[in-house]
């Protein structure tokens, strides 16, 4: 059993090496290596999850045997392992779902690069999840940004290059702010390992010294990560980046990459700053307000869109708003809801992007609404999957979205001051969600004589597998949420 303690580090390094090896391989080999890699990663993370759940406590893995406070550490608890497992699973399904599109639209000699980038992206996500060292986190944030940029512009049209540049600029702004915050924190505490910083911060907070710099630091890091995870009003890069890239890229970016940053923020809140200190700075209230604003304005923008991909992208802005609202409640219940929504939104959004590809594929590749009329009859499976994803987003019971809403509302009801705004905005946002998702569903189910040919499941086996599994994942999250909730609670307990 002890050997499992090596697994998180092995998982990260394995990805790194797979990426390097892939750069010398043919596209097909790179693809198989990537899929095999993700399956191995899932196994490793599953073992870690099992180990931490059984032992009931988090463990620290010291890289290169240099002891704290000098060395570099990895720390794995239930929540980290669960999220890592989830990330691997959703990534595999997103890649499988979009594989056909990749082979059609990406130039033959660049295809292997896609898998190199995907390997590195997974590596950085795992590192963000597992690391116990703030500077390592920063390094992998950058690796993450670069690979994400590559994923966006792998299909080189004018729009994707523009989108990638936009993404790059906003992302670098975000990581710049994070770096500044990190430097100041290093200056204030003299440490880079999370546990050590937390001790010093607690001491500083208790003594009341450096109150203003500390607040500024926390603010810088929070805003930096908020920009990177597309919190309103820093979301302007989202519609282009998710709207014009390939379906797998969009699915991975919206359901995993942005969540990686949010998880890092949650880790910073709990493991670096300390929940109490963070709460005292009132930054939670700012996050709460921005979250609420995002929920409304993201949906409003989505309603105005005439491009289905951009509509789903704007919906992500709204959903990220939900997560920040949960964090902004400043309570344990709010945090549980936010983390559950990370899972729930990732599952639903990946499903939507993959299904959307099936729908547009049956409409001559057009993303305009008027061409999508009746698409669900031409591609029955994608239509059904899109409907399932939409229902989850709207929050029908049995789907994951409903449990998210339930948890958010329960958290809100326990929080005196924030109850009314949270519930009211939750209501308005739900209705707005319904407006654009149901509008789309009705359109794709409106029968019409169409020049485009239908697609049966035999021509899209991988998409079928991906859609079915993602739908099952959504239903699983919706019907058996209690076990997930328990794991999240347990994981949060291990953060302390």
């Amino acid at each position, binding site marked *: 059993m002890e050997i499992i303690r090596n697994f998180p580090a092995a998982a990260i390094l394995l990805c790194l090496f797979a990426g390097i090896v892939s750069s010398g391989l043919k596209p097909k080999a790179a693809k198989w290596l990537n899929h095999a890699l993700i399956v191995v990663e899932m196994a490793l993370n599953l073992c870690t999850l099992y180990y931490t759940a059984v032992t009931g406590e988090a463990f620290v893995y010291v890289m290169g045997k240099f002891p704290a406070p000098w060395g570099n550490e990895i720390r794995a608890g239930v929540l980290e392992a669960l999220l890592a497992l989830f990330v691997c699973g959703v990534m595999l399904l997103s890649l499988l779902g979009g594989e056909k599109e990749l082979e059609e639209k990406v130039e033959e000699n660049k295809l292997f690069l896609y898998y190199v980038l995907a390997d590195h992206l997974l590596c950085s996500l795992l590192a963000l999840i597992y690391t116990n060292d703030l500077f390592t986190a920063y390094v992998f944030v950058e690796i993450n940004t670069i690979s994400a940029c590559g994923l966006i512009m792998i299909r080189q049209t004018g729009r994707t290059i523009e989108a990638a540049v936009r993404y790059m600029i906003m992302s670098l702004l975000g990581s710049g702010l994070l770096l500044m915050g990190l430097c100041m924190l290093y200056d204030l505490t003299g440490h880079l390992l999370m546990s050590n910083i937390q001790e010093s911060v607690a001491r500083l907070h208790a003594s009341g010294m450096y109150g203003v710099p500390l607040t500024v630091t926390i603010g810088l890091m929070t805003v930096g990560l908020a920009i990177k995870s597309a919190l309103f009003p820093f979301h302007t890069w989202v519609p282009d980046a998710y709207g014009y890239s390939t379906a797998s890229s969009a699915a991975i970016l919206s359901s995993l990459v942005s969540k990686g940053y949010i998880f890092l923020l949650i880790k910073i809140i709990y493991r670096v700053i300390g929940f109490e200190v963070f709460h005292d700075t009132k930054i939670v209230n700012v996050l709460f307000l921005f979250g609420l604003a995002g929920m409304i304005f993201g949906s409003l923008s989505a309603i105005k869109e005439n491009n289905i991909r951009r509509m789903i992208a704007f919906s992500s802005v709204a959903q990220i708003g939900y997560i920040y609202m949960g964090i902004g409640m400043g309570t344990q219940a709010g945090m549980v809801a936010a983390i559950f929504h990370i899972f729930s939104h990732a599952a639903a959004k990946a499903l939507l992007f993959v299904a959307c590809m099936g729908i547009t594929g049956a409409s001559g590749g057009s993303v305009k609404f008027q061409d999508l009329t009746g698409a669900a009859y031409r591609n029955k499976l994608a239509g059904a999957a899109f409907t399932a994803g939409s*229902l989850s987003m709207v929050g*029908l019971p049995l789907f994951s979205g409903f449990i998210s809403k339930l948890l958010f509302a329960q958290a809100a*009801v*326990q929080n005196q001051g924030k109850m009314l705004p949270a519930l009211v905005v939750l209501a308005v946002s739900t209705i707005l969600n*319904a407006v654009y998702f149901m*509008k789309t569903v*009705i359109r794709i189910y409106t*029968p019409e004589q169409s020049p485009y040919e239908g697609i049966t499941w035999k021509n899209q086996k991988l998409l079928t597998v991906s859609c079915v599994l993602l739908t099952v994942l959504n239903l699983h999250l919706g019907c058996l949420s209690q076990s997930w*909730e328990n794991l999240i609670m347990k994981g949060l307990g291990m953060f302390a």
Partner: protein
Amino acid sequence: MIFTAILIPVLAGLILLLGPEWKNRKQLCGFTDAALLLSFLAVCVALGTTKENEAVTLFNLTTGLPIFFKIDGVSRFFAVLTGILWVPAGIYAFGYMEHEWKEKRYYGFYLLSYAVLTGLDFSGNLITFYLFYESMSLLTLPLVLHNGSKEAIMAGLKYLFFSLAGAYMVLFGLFLLNRFGNTLTFTAGGVLDAALLEGREGLLLAGAFLMILGFGVKAGMFPLHAWLPAAHPVAPAPASGVLSGMIAKCGVLGVIRTVFYLFGADFLRGTWVQQVWLVLSLTTVLLGSMMAYREKGLKKRLAYSTVSQVSYILFGLATLQWEGFTGAFLHTAAHALMKCGLFLVAGAIIFKTGKTKVEELSGIGRQMPVTMICYTLLSLSLIGIPPFGGFVSKWFLGRGGVNSGLPVFDILGPAVLLVSALLTAGYLLPISIRGFLGGEESVVRPEKKEPSFLMLAPIVLFTVLVTVLGICPDKVIGYITEIAKVLIKEGMTG
């Protein structure tokens, strides 16, 4: 057994929706018919074999929030009523849908809706109820959208958004109840926890009001009624019939569950919630009648009439008094039969003559005598003339208003009901009068256009049932009074 009752129509519906096209129309209808009858039979067996308040849990959504079913007096009443409406309207559709497209889809969703309604009637707690309530909105949507015209799609969207807005208001109340109640299980007399409640009455009242308003959306209560006159008439006639007859009543069922099984009648008695609720329902009664009076299209006129009549029921419930409560249940049954019957008549007229406007119907009575006689009888019942079901229910509703002991409303309520009854006569009877007496006198032998047996039989059946309900309502009244005894302790005279 409850599962079977829900599962049969679900499976049959899925077979129809996912399966290939049927070549033989007769077989398609036969299959649907068999599925409908079998489902109704299963419901009856479930009602017969399941003990009162025996809970059947499906699974746990989260700890403390199980999806489970249980059967009590209210569920029995609604389940039987649903079956009585759903099966004949389905049989009527075999005749009516002949000239429509995509019959298979219609029957598929029709069966699924029946399953969902059964689930709704048997729901044991608010979460289960909410689940089926939302599913009902989504699954009845294709019935509204059926003909695929622009008008239908706009009406469908309107229906959807109003429904979802209503559902969220309900969810708001659900969150509050989850916090301040002991349980979400429907319990006679309410689930509120007095200790937790201390000092939060205002909030809870607001929650109760939102829930009433939210369920009121389906029942077409002012101010969220605008979707109903748009959505009900665009559906094919048998679907309009069940939408007005039964789906609107599911909103009523939601209100009953909210008021008497979650918050408790005593919690709301004498509060602003009751007052506003009374005002809103009376406004709707009057408003719906006046709009119906002005409306020229026959089906749309009937839809406005639904707006008005369902609020009679809500008014009866809002009195929080046993006679009003009894009247509400009676009117639920009577109105379901009457309105479904009237829509089927309208469908028969459209099917045979293609006429949709009221003024085109001169002399229709000579062409379709049986249909129009049924129409006249159903109209008389809807106005509230003895010996039909509508009279008995309105009698109880009026008494409920008078004996409610509420200032102003004890006079105003019955007065509004009377004025609205006059308006009802005003918008329904001229069609009969012109139908039988108007038109060209010179035509000695008008062409007979009576619809086929499949379409005529349900219309006649509903007319007979309403008459029976009017002549011997004792059994039903006794049954409802038993329910009322448990729920409303005040003012029971035995």
